[in-house]
């Protein structure tokens, strides 16, 4: 039950956060995520992506969270894809929807 559409529609300028039922465990390669509601496991393939996801709730937008984690402008598209995947699997959600 994807909450969001294709990656290009992921709203970088919206405010996002980790879903309440999700736990994050840092690992050497990035992190593992587990959603207790959907019972799905997911993973973050880099520490930078972990920093982005961890700061979503504190930043005004996903774009701001990427900037705060020093995501290079050239890589923003791939981070957007990663965030879209996380939204589609309900690991992150829009803040007003929380």
């Amino acid at each position, binding site marked *: 039950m994807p909450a969001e559409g294709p990656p290009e529609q992921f709203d970088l300028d919206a405010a996002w956060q980790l879903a309440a039922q999700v736990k994050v*465990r840092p*690992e*050497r390669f990035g992190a593992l995520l*587990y959603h207790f509601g959907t019972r799905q496991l997911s993973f973050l393939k880099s520490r930078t992506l972990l920093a982005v996801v961890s700061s979503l709730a504190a930043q005004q937008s996903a774009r701001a969270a990427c900037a705060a984690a020093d995501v290079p402008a050239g890589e923003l598209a791939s981070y957007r894809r990663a965030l879209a995947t996380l939204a589609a699997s309900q690991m992150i959600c829009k803040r007003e929807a929380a």
Partner: protein
Amino acid sequence: MTTTTALPLVEQFQYGLAAPICLTWELTYACNLSCVHCLSSSGRRDPGELSTAECKAVIDELERMQVFYVNIGGGEPTVRPDFWELLDYAAEHGVGVKFSTNGVKITADVARRLAGSDYVDVQISLDGATAAVNDAVRGAGSYAMALRAMQNLADAGFAGFKISVVITRHNVGQLDAFQAIADRFGTQLRITRLRPSGRGAGVWDELHPTAAQQRQLYDWLVSHGGNVLTGDSFFHLSGYGGSLPGLNLCGAGRVVCLIDPVGDVYACPFAIHPSFLAGNVRDSGGFTRVWQHSGLFTELRRPQAGGACESCSAFDGCRGGCMAAKFFTGLPLDGPDPECVKGHGERALATAGASSAPRPSPDHSHRSAGRRPVPITLARRPPVSACNADPLAGFTAPGR
């Protein structure tokens, strides 16, 4: 799948994780059944089993290690008098529990209670889509017991519990019938591989799928893979062609391990043998130290030699197959899996001879247990294909 790293995830995982993803914890060797293929040779309780307080201390540790969930089994875990107390304790401490049961204690009341928790998932074991096939392996009345438990869970509104099937020569032709049962109860089907572990060692020769059935199983998984859980247990079939969903890596000691009822920690649930014993949760430093520093697990996280398999065209897919399957059939760990899809395992078995196979240990079987299956023959039906979306979209936990 999520983005940006040089190394593929499978490469990362083979060096191990800070905590297991797939931790199996067998709470007791006691069981009301005597399944002929029981991987832990269960039946009688072991007097040295962890106490309630010791179990709670393990849960505390799992919470500190941020283990998301634990797969509880046995034996039949629900026959432990403190089972429900431990279940509540785990939930209070944010450790999810998926427990495997034959259904003996899943009454309507229990089902209602279970349906209320995000932290609990239930897996009902069923090894035949008909009573005849199931009961030949799991014992008289076990089919009816499992179906009654499923009905209770469904009536209680427990969405998405699992039906767990060990694939044998006699039920591999019933895959569609299993799926129909799962659909009837609104559950998810989970099918796993028969290993020659525990009592399974004694029946493996006559129960494991034939080569033709393996191919049939692979084709069925390719067309149904998105909806069916496999515990990542059929990665040895990847040699047929495209990889199946999941990690396609032996996770033993890397992402997987087993805590047995007396607190012994083994590399995997199918490897209950001194050769794969890494330590005990009662040792100083507890489970954390065993997971992070035991000599065995450190060794398993080093790149493993694939031996002769490395030159095979299928090696990237199957990686030599299942360590436990090789070990308990007497094959070298750096050689082919006994069910190698290229037939190398069969040839190796013919050379190795049964006498070289190590005996599974320890054995908690009921002393009176009948251990031979009733031979039965079933008509096989071709799989009906209903293709789903890409089964590799997203990562499905190798849930057990």
